[in-house]
């Protein structure tokens, strides 16, 4: 009898095993938001992305498959080594299930490498490089919100159509600047535009007037700012001081969002063209989301914040669909479902991890046209996702059959 009881218990236990694996490991789903919270990108993503993640969890009900969802956050200071240490600690010691946001390309690539090695899911909203879904793609790595290609197509391609066919670049003198300039130039040329020249400025210069005078003298119709953060803000502010926009030249900021336009003020930003994956005042659904976000943070979300909301929501939905938080199953669910939320709007996740969704070409309004706080943009055009993003088969990602 004893033997029989033991055998039954063993069978029961064995039968229970898959059921156990199909639940939530260690009884909690832990999401880590890792980004720059003290440097130049602290407004671009920062703690505001953490707030967006918290909001997504609350909207989801706070639990998934009956287990609580926890969000933790840390500052990587834009340093890949710091980020790598935090990622390893989170995965190895704190049972973090996924790391998200990951502003700054070098950091995102480092953490995606670690996640792949540890077989964990990472979802990037803050970084720009197309490498994440190209040569360095991961079966568990996903890229939301935007990339350098989408910015180039959006701002570059659309402006040429509107007659801005000769360009001069102000480029930040490092890899990110070069890659933005190169990808945008490629698009300009393929859509009939010309590049009259470029000036490379050191990262974190304070005065751009010399460079702006050179751009002004080139006679180009569009001055493309292939830089980021405070560099772009100062370039724009000083361009307005030197009468560049008033003189008929157009400024195109290749990576600039609502957060930075708010910092700059619409007086200096007016007439600026840029591309984002989200604008809060575009339709009723985005307005409703924007207002709820504003109530808790006092700011309107840009594409990184709304994108982070979307990654958290889609991740939790995918766990629900897979019935487990096991990495392979969740990654399959992420790819198999359309991204249906305020940000994704029926976007799809390709085999290389790229979330393909529409982008918006935006123009900063003149101060007189700004009717309420944070109402900085008008939408010039919608760029369909399949044009904005590299075709998965051409991305160079080994996971996609070429």
């Amino acid at each position, binding site marked *: 009898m004893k033997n029989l009881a033991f055998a039954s218990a063993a069978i029961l236990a064995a039968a229970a095993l898959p059921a156990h694996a199909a639940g939530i490991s260690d009884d909690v789903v832990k999401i880590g938001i890792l980004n720059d919270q*003290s*440097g*130049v*990108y*602290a*407004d*671009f993503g*920062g703690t505001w992305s953490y707030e967006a993640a918290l909001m997504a969890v609350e909207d989801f009900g706070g639990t998934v498959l009956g287990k609580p969802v926890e969000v933790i956050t840390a500052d990587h200071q834009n340093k890949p080594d710091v980020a790598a240490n935090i990622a390893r600690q989170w995965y190895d010691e704190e049972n973090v299930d996924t790391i998200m946001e990951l502003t700054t390309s070098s950091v995102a690539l480092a953490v995606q490498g670690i996640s792949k090695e540890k077989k964990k899911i990472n979802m990037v909203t803050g970084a720009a490089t197309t490498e994440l879904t190209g040569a360095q793609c991961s079966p568990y790595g996903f890229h939301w919100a935007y990339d350098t290609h989408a910015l180039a197509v959006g701002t570059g391609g659309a402006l040429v159509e509107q007659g801005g066919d000769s360009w001069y670049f102000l480029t930040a*003198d490092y890899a990110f600047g070069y890659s933005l300039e190169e990808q945008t130039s490629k698009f300009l040329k393929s859509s009939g535009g010309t590049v009259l020249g470029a*000036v*490379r*400025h*050191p990262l*974190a*210069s*304070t*005065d751009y*007037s*010399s*460079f702006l*005078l*050179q751009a*002004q*003298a080139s006679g180009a119709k569009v001055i493309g700012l292939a830089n980021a*953060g*405070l560099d772009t*803000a*100062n370039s724009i*502010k*000083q361009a307005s*001081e*030197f*009468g560049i926009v008033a*003189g008929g030249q157009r400024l195109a900021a290749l990576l600039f969002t609502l*957060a*930075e336009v*708010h*910092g*700059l*003020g619409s*007086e*200096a930003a007016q007439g600026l063209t840029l591309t984002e994956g989200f604008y809060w005042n575009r339709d009723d659904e985005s307005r409703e989301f924007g207002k709820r976000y504003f109530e808790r943070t006092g700011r309107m979300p840009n594409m990184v914040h709304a994108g982070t909301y979307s990654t958290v929501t889609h991740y939790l939905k995918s766990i629900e669909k897979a019935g487990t938080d096991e990495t392979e199953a969740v990654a399959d669910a992420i790819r198999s479902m359309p991204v249906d939320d305020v940000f994704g709007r029926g976007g799809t996740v390709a085999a290389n991890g790229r979330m393909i969704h529409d982008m918006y070409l935006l123009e900063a309004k003149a101060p007189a046209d700004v009717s309420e706080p944070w109402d900085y943009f008008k939408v010039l055009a919608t760029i369909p996702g399949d044009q904005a993003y590299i075709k998965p088969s051409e991305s160079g990602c080994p996971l996609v059959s070429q």
Partner: protein
Amino acid sequence: MTMIFGIPLQAFLGQLLVGLINGSFYAMLSLGLAIIFGLLRVINFAHGAQYMMGAFAGFLLLSWLGINYWFALILGPVIVGLSGAVVERFALSRLYKLDHLYGLLFTFGLALVIEGGFRYFYGSSGQPYATPALLSGGVNLGFMYMPIYRGWVVVASLVVCIGTWLLIEKTKLGSYLRAATENPVLVQSFGINVPLLLTLTYALGAGLAALAGILAAPIYQVSPLMGSNLIIVVFAIVVVGGMGSIMGAIVTGYMLGILEGLTKVFYPEASNIVIFVIMAIVLLVRPAGLFGRDA
């Protein structure tokens, strides 16, 4: 068209002027540093933070109290100067007996704390500050479009630099200051309050940084990071001019501003290191700096 060094004369003149404008900021900031180092022997790493505080003082006075640019130009340096006086009296003055390194470390830490605090409250992307109406717009000089505000910065900076130099080199107060640093015990025995003089000096240096900050507010983003971007360059200028030499700091500030401006035309990639290259050369050839006296 007349060409000079392979670029059109007009563009060359434009860049020269832009260099002069940047030189104005360098001169004003390095002046404050030189005074503090020359008289207190403190390497004031908080100078960039004080410059940033000046810009924020202008921004906050305007957005909270509606105080305009012109009053802020006076009030801002006073507020930052007072905060400098507090720092000197309660902290820095206790470090004079120790190695210079302690003053450097203290002010460096202070700068990090101040910048962190402002970043916590105001974020990293900065705040806008509009150009005062009287100085907005620009004039066409023929070779370039010159924003009026930038012209004002050059004039204001020249006035401040020359005024400060006169104050220290030609007035009685200035002579007390200089004497107090040469031999504080002797000066004290003449009945002059030396600790008070030193507090005033630090406040003056901090106030000068704040003034530069307010002048910069309409040109650059009012950002918590604005000072840390500039401070290292300004230190290099002080070293080139000769640590503690006030005239050296002023002249070198303008000179290197212009040189940097020209580098931005001929080889833009090098524009952020040209000042440090000059610094290295000067240190090799004249370790005391261009205007410094050999110790």
